[in-house]
């Protein structure tokens, strides 16, 4: 019955020319669809995933970063525009577009009322994430709950949604978009519209493309999010003459448990033990300062660090003193009473690991351990050093978590202007093509990441894209 209902919906979708066609049913796509529909357009959302997995990487999100000048409902303190901007400037190392970034930051102040009006609910920052209570508003129930609310709101407004339809080709007449080819099983069909919003994410689940960008090391990457972000529309836009921005190897890439599934492991695969112990590579040697900064601030660099190690594997090692001081990861650690035994369980050379830990222990300068501040426990005369929270690894049992790079999303993007219009290589904006979300996030995030900013960009640009698309369709 369900199948035949979908079929009917599809036949009617195929026969009409829509005002606005939205490719991708994640946060940005739904913000666009709702905004376009509210502006009076007929709207069709084409989602490549089945309904259970709809919403791309938004399913795995949990908050959005918001500017605010005073405490507001779930947000503590103040997070003014300038501080937000400086945070972004720091992580991106200047690889950002200040005009677009500041526009997003300013709009983030008013996002939440709009979100609430469409069913999204918020909660105070979660246990273990107090450091985000000032800057990030958490969705009650997380990203999937947010998506459920948006789908309900969109369908209530009369937005049509097609699932399991992957957009594979774009059709232009001169510089004007006219139709998109969608694939379902072995069938291809054409859907026509007066304006297009591309909100179909990056290419992080396209293993061939990752390999093209990273080389064979990409085979050892895990994809934390949806398996449906193949980047086909990103490539189709570039092929159709859109300007691109960003480096295909840049993205949000963290170190996650090596035992996680290839796709879709989401938040629970994180391992927060790094700053409490040491991290060694395949050769049982340390390679980076584990205590450089508070873990949440360094969370997003460890994926690249592990990607740079032989075999793209690393092992976080802690002793009994660390247990209970970090959010327990989903997979239980490997555990042993001696370092040699732990090495054997982790497929590491026992002698080398013993030697690495002995050298580390000998370099530890005793201080006053305090995990809540940048404390004075550091190593002396060790390369690389551990600059905070350095404590001897000497209390059994010992624990190890294997780590691999986990790609969250990629930054290679199409260039957009402040009206979300895709800019063509000639320099002019496309007449009726707009982009929102990951597919354009690289305009603002050239490298690095600040938590919750992807959802902010998606929400702000989704709303703009929907509104603008509805305007040109009339």
């Amino acid at each position, binding site marked *: 019955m369900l199948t035949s209902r979908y079929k009917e919906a599809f036949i009617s979708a195929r026969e009409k020319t829509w005002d606005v066609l939205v490719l991708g049913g994640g946060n940005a796509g739904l913000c666009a669809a709702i905004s376009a529909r509210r502006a009076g357009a007929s709207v069709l959302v084409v989602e490549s995933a089945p309904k*259970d997995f709809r919403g791309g990487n938004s399913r795995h999100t949990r908050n959005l970063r918001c500017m605010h000048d005073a405490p507001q409902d779930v947000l503590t303190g103040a997070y003014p525009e300038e501080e937000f901007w400086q945070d972004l400037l720091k992580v991106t190392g200047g690889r950002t577009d200040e005009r677009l970034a500041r526009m997003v930051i300013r709009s983030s102040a008013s996002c939440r009322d709009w979100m609430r009006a469409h069913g999204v*609910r918020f*909660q105070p920052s979660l246990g273990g994430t107090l450091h985000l209570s000032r800057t990030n508003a958490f969705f009650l*129930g997380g990203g999937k709950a947010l998506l459920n609310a948006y789908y309900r709101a969109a369908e209530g407004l009369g937005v049509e949604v097609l699932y399991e339809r992957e957009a594979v080709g774009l059709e232009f007449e001169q510089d004007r978009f006219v139709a998109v080819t969608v694939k379902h099983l072995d069938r291809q069909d054409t859907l026509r519209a007066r304006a297009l919003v591309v909100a179909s994410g990056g290419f992080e689940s396209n293993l061939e493309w990752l390999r093209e960008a990273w080389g064979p090391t990409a085979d050892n990457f895990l994809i934390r999010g949806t398996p449906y972000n193949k980047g086909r529309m990103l490539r189709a836009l570039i092929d159709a003459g859109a300007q691109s921005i960003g480096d295909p190897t840049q993205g949000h890439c963290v170190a996650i448990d090596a035992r996680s*599934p290839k796709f879709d492991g989401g938040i629970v695969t994180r391992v*927060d033990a790094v700053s409490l112990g040491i991290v060694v590579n395949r050769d049982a040697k340390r390679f980076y300062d584990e205590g450089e900064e508070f873990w949440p601030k360094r969370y997003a660099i460890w994926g690249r660090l592990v990607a740079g190690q032989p075999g793209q594997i690393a092992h976080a090692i802690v002793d009994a003193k660390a247990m*209970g001081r*970090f959010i327990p990861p989903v997979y239980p650690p490997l555990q042993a009473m001696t370092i040699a035994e732990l090495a054997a369980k982790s497929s590491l050379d026992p002698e080398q690991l013993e030697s690495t830990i002995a050298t580390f222990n000998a370099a530890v300068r005793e201080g006053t351990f305090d995990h*809540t501040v940048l404390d004075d426990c550091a190593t002396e005369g060790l390369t690389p050093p551990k600059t905070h929270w350095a404590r001897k690894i000497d209390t059994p049992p010992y624990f190890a978590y294997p780590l691999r790079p986990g790609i969250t999303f990629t930054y290679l993007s199409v260039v957009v202007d402040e009206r979300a219009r895709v800019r063509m290589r000639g320099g002019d904006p496309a007449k009726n093509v707009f982009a929102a979300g990951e597919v354009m996030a690289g305009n603002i995030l050239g490298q690095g990441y600040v938590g919750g900013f992807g959802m902010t960009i998606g929400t702000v640009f989704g709303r703009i894209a929907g509104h603008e698309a509805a305007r040109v369709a009339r």
Partner: protein
Amino acid sequence: MSLDELIQEAQRQLRICNACRYCEGFCAVFPALERRLEFTEDDVHYLANLCHNCGSCYYACQYAPPHEFNLNFPRTLARVRAQTYRRYAWPAFLGRLYERNGAAVAAVMAACFLGVLLAMALAIEPWRLFGAHPDIAGSFYAVLRHGAMAGVFGLVFVFVVAAMAASASRFFVSTDFDSLKGGLADSLTLKYLGGGGEGCTYPQDEASGARRVFHHFTFYGFLLCFAATCVGTLYHYGFGWKAPYPFLSLPVILGTLGGVGLLLGPAGLAWLKRKADASLKDEAQRGMDDGFLLLLFLTSLTGLLLLAFRETHAMGVLLAVHLAMVLALFLTLPYGKFMHGLYRLAALARFHAERKLPPPRVGSE
């Protein structure tokens, strides 16, 4: 699935939830589980009984099936609760009544019905049972002697209270008045059928207050009926006033209001159950749930019919049937669905007690 496998499966799912924490704002289960790094069997029973099976976390879950983590938290906790009821029942051997609870409740109903009829038949001449009785004080006792009725119900009441107290205290004991008060307030308001504010996702994935309303009808209906019985007892022994009481007397007003609640509530809950999302339910508990709802409904229905027809020939039979239902209801209270309320209350009290302790610091800032 064996009991061990069930507990292990619950522990696996709890570890996923503890690493994720997105659902923290929905109810007490998540803040409670976040206080733990590992989950003992005792923890699993405690957390399972904090869960009201509202479904909000399931619909919000990024790991719900068909995801390979196959996380169906509400259903797993429901299955654990079924084991809680067996595990903590007193006396222990009667815990087996939970194995096929619907059948057990039906058998007790039938036995009570036969027993009451038999008792009446042996005690009085048959014509009295089918005779018409003017509605005057003491007419009930013309078909069943007050002493016998009070004696049987008194004994049953004492046993039931003892069995329930023993079961609940095996589950959790608190002498901390504050946490008990907190648990009681959460129970009496059904705070956690609120889904974090807008109602729970029951019977389907849209927020709704229906379950909370019908549960309130049921619970407060039950309380009003119980209050009616207490006032009646007081009238009898304190003032020597004999039942039946006039329509506008306190016991009849309380009983009628409660009776209406006990018709609407259980009927509504049973109706919602029919519409509820099958993926969240533990189908094995259907007999227990339906049996209890049916018994509450019939107790109320026969009571109201007795009230309506107490001046007719039907009074004797209606009284027999009503008393049989009340007897069956009480006898099965410690071995049926009713116990969920006590375990829920105990779990909520424990939640409030734990909340006074400092939370574990797992963040680094």
